[in-house]
């Protein structure tokens, strides 16, 4: 194993811990989400007006955006872990890393923009 060490570790305790913590926070957020949804909008957010009204609360905006960040981190770390199981070459892995980071960043920026746009339409 010592010989087979690649110069840079591709996964370690830090990323694992991050995955677990984001995972647990997602579970907590989802719980809050369901409770809040039922208290704020008992029938669900089924019309455009409902959604806009819901996003008027700044706490909701912050929560939704952090939720998105957590979900993106967790799912993309998980996806990367699955891809690592396929024993990719360092080159392929670099591409995978790049693609995942780009898609993740785009998803977060796009989501944040969306949330702020909706909030701004109030």
């Amino acid at each position, binding site marked *: 194993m010592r010989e087979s060490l690649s110069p840079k570790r591709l996964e370690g305790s830090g990323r*694992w811990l991050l995955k*677990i913590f984001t*995972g*647990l926070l*997602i*579970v907590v957020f*989802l719980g809050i989400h369901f409770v809040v949804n039922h208290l704020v909008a008992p029938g669900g957010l*089924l*019309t*455009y*007006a409902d*959604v806009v009204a819901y996003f008027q609360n700044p706490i909701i905006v912050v929560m939704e955006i952090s939720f998105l960040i957590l*979900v*993106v981190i967790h*799912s*993309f770390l*998980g*996806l990367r872990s*699955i891809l690592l*199981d*396929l*024993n*990719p070459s360092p080159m392929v892995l670099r591409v995978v890393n790049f693609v995942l980071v780009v*898609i993740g960043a785009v*998803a977060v920026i*796009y*989501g944040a923009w*969306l949330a702020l*746009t*909706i909030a701004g339409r109030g």
Partner: protein
Amino acid sequence: MPNQPEANNWPRWFDPRSRSLGTFGFILNRVTALGLTLYLLMHLIALGQLARGADAYDGFIALVKNPLFKLGELLVIAAGVIHGLNGIRIALNSFGIGVRCQKGTFIALMLIALFIIAFFTFKMFSEG
């Protein structure tokens, strides 16, 4: 030499033959993970309708009320519940907690998951 580890063996991840309970947990976790990631991306794209204004979004919501979409939504909820509860087990195990009763924990959590899924099924289709 067909038995060496090869990346193209990946379909065997999902092969439950002559496997024990732990692998069912592994398979469920992996399938739901992939499903939920796919859903996350689709969801973000679909919510783009919000930016296009009230008519676009309300039209979209009308489409989603279709039973087929409801079934999809239910699948997402089921996947989320299973992945979340199973994830709690794996997280605890990774801190060395409850490894030796992981089977019992798995069964208990999956029963809870079943219960929650049943609850949502009932709720969704009764409102229908």
